[in-house]
């Protein structure tokens, strides 16, 4: 049952529209109910070959030798593709937006870093023949110690998962092994809080489990081009990733997709397209590479695990005065997108509440497991779980109703958020009020009267004095260095650490009238556009 509450925020909307707001039937519904919606795999191509990969049986091992003698002689085998056959066998997805270092091969060459990592691709006349050839491949491994826990991975002496990041953590801003958020003086506020609550939260990985598994069909087309039917969630992302890995101009490819059997974030990584195209290039035939269900579940990227520590200071009257968070994203063996999730997570702190002192350190950590990627609620789902469980505990601690506790601490229009932007267009309070009403959950009159549009701003708009970390001295030293993933022009240099801000900030945030995105006063690891 869905009810539209048109009475709320009515003054901010023009509801006099013709097509918008109507429950019009989906454009694709007729296709869906007749089975004529065309997914990547619904293309029947003459002479199609089948690609399967040999996956590592080890979580962490050096590859001593790969013996394909028997596999090459196996019936129906057209081509065995090794890492050395991949033109650019090292990539990181976000290199397209100049973020992070190339750290992942399409096919492992000298080392495997997670169980299930692809080592060889076999192209054969049938799936059965590809499976038979796989069974004949002999890989000689030298097992290495593996690390599976994010905090163990950060300890000195932990096995190095991914040599591109020898400390097992993604490097932010050339300097830190984590993304920081600093707003006010959390430690001082914790020291003077009536109650302090510190808790640990954990989310195991989660699989996207779309009913259609990842896959692609690539086929030689006219005029030297390749047509690629794909399940990708990001068409040009996949085009450009393939162009980079295969070292050809992007207009070599004609990608066709757009009708996908569920994604939820699990079809961004462009895992099948490069090998399918390479198979087509090497054999001159159409090649299909589609994940089996077990492959999708175990070796397709999951939503990565997260471990979160929250330490909150709360006053007897229910006001939260400090929130300090350490969060660890388990990226698995390679970066994929977890590095970006950690920044998004830092931006999300401390949740939709106005807390005057916030401190966050968010780590992207490498372990010997299947690389993680984006999923519905990327970078936020686990943090929301942690924050909202913590909110329930805090309400309990101070003896408040949890709904009223949320409303008391909710952010409102005009408040300063911890990432130092003004809160606008907020509606948390109204959501709490309406949910309480629907659930017949009694809240007191003063909380029913609260509004996102009232009582924000003023002193709540201030950026509080924020002390520098002691670690900042250590961190400042290499700040002038640039690493290869920072592809900004060399003239852009890091500004030296600023002095602590003045003790009495202005009531309103210093903010230009227009959008301040892309402000140039910070140096950044984020480039502007693709290479």
């Amino acid at each position, binding site marked *: *049952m*869905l009810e*539209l509450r048109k009475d709320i925020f009515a003054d901010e*909307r023009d509801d006099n529209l013709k*097509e*918008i707001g109507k429950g019009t039937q989906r*454009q694709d519904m007729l296709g869906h109910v007749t089975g004529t919606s065309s997914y990547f795999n619904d293309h029947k191509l003459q002479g199609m070959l089948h690609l399967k990969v040999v996956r590592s049986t080890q979580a962490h091992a050096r590859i001593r030798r790969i013996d394909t003698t028997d596999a090459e002689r196996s019936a129906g085998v057209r081509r065995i593709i090794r890492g050395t056959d991949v033109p650019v066998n090292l990539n990181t997805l976000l290199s397209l937006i100049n973020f992070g270092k190339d750290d992942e091969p399409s096919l492992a060459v000298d080392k495997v870093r997670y169980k299930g990592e692809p080592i060889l691709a076999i192209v054969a006349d049938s799936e059965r023949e590809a499976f038979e050839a796989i069974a004949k491949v002999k890989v000689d491994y030298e097992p290495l110690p593996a690390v599976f826990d994010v905090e163990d991975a950060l300890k000195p002496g932990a096995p190095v998962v991914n040599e591109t990041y020898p400390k097992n953590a993604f490097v932010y801003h050339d*300097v830190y092994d984590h993304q*920081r958020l600093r707003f006010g003086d959390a430690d001082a506020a914790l020291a003077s809080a009536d109650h302090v609550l510190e*808790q*640990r939260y954990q989310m*195991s990985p*989660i*699989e996207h489990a779309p009913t259609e598994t990842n896959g692609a069909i690539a086929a030689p087309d006219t005029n030297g081009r390749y047509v690629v039917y794909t399940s*990708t*969630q*990001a068409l*040009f992302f996949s085009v450009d990733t393939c162009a980079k890995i295969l070292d050809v101009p992007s207009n070599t490819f*004609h990608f066709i997709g*757009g009708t*996908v059997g569920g*994604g939820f*974030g699990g079809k961004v990584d462009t895992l099948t397209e490069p090998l399918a195209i390479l198979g087509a290039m090497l054999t001159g035939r159409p090649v299909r590479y589609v994940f089996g269900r*077990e492959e999708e579940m*175990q070796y397709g990227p999951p939503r990565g695990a997260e471990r979160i520590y929250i330490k909150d200071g709360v006053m007897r009257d229910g006001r939260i005065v400090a929130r300090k968070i350490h969060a660890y994203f388990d990226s698995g063996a390679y970066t994929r997108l977890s590095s970006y999730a950690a920044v998004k997570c830092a*931006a*999300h702190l401390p949740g*939709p509440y106005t807390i005057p002192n916030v401190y966050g350190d968010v780590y992207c950590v490498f372990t010997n*497991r299947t690389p993680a990627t*984006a999923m*519905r*609620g*990327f970078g*936020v789902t686990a943090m*929301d*779980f942690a924050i*909202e*469980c913590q*909110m*329930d505990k805090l309400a309990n601690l101070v003896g408040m109703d*949890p709904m009223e506790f*949320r409303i008391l601490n909710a952010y409102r229009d005009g408040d300063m958020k*911890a*990432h130092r932007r003004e809160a*606008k*267009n907020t509606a*948390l309070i109204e*959501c*709490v009020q309406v949910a*309480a009403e*629907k*659930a017949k*959950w009694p809240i007191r009159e003063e909380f029913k009267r609260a509004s996102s549009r009232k009582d924000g701003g003023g002193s709540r708009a201030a950026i509080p004095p*924020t002390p520098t970390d002691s670690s900042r001295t250590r961190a400042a030293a290499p700040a002038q260095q640039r690493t290869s993933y920072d592809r900004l022009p060399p003239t852009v240099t890091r500004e030296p*650490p600023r002095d602590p801000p003045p003790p009495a900030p202005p009531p309103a945030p210093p903010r230009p009238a227009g959008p*301040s*995105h*892309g*402000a140039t006063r910070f140096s950044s690891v*984020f480039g502007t556009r693709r290479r």
Partner: protein
Amino acid sequence: MTRHRGRGMASINYPIGMNLGGDPSQALVHSNPSGKFTVALSSIDLGQGMKSVTRQICAETLGVPVEDVYVDTADSDTGPHCMGSFASRGTHRVGNAVMAAAREARGVMMEAAAEELEVNAADLETDGRGNIHVRGAPHRSISTKDVAIAAQFKQGKTISGRGIFLVPLSNVDPETGEMSPATCYAHACLVAEVEVDDETGEVAMVRMDSAYELGRALNPRLVEQQLVGGAWMGVSHALYETPEPYYPDPVHGPRDFVEYLMPGPGDICPHDIAVLERPAPDGPFGAKGPGEMCANPVLPAVANAIFNAVGVRIDDLPITPEKVLRAIKAQGGARPQARR
């Protein structure tokens, strides 16, 4: 008495679009000679309704019926660049690009109509049913079909438009984390009621009540699809799912849909939803994006409801019967909290 009921709640917000921006999407809109419009995109429809919602945005902006618009996606030879379908960016980013393209096409269409009707284009309006007429004088009218024919064959005009939407990339301060992560946020609050078996640790969903604020429900049926399905996924994440049941020990990973746990059709519960609309200043018709955030409040609401039912806090996801049972045993039995 071994089964205990409890209620819990959670409230959340969610950023719309790729974090920090810098994620453009483009759209092309053009009319065929009989006034039927095609939207060319490279954006992906994963089931969320990309084709359908951009179709409505285009029709509204052009001022034509939705039946006169067809969305074609995703072909890299014909569809212009889009960053992709993720980060709740479809409605907001692609919707804005389609709006911009449709606005440009509408401009040409109105000019062509003005030339046919021998009036000033500024005096014309669309009726949303396929006609353009002089404001206040509905009888001085021309169909969009006739305008398209005239534009194509008589005036030599192309009724088409290009659109791009880009939230400029924000930097991030390494020391403070100062940044502009998103331009707008969706909001939600959800109440979950559960029943916990204190001898087996099993948790059953009883009902959910929720309020979601998402800027504008461009199509309430599509919104309902996202919110109902998303809340189901939230329950699934809360109580069932993981490919690593013994994380961080990487053993006994599920290999099929029997071992990978997701609630079945017999595990679902009634879910009463309210939708609030506080338009985002930069959203297409104020819209934000419901697709991702809808699952998020369910996880903590369920955890908090379990506490209310039996007095144990499970801070590890997923909240399996085993974790609940261990916690109940550790505290010496269920301790139901005050009924809510």
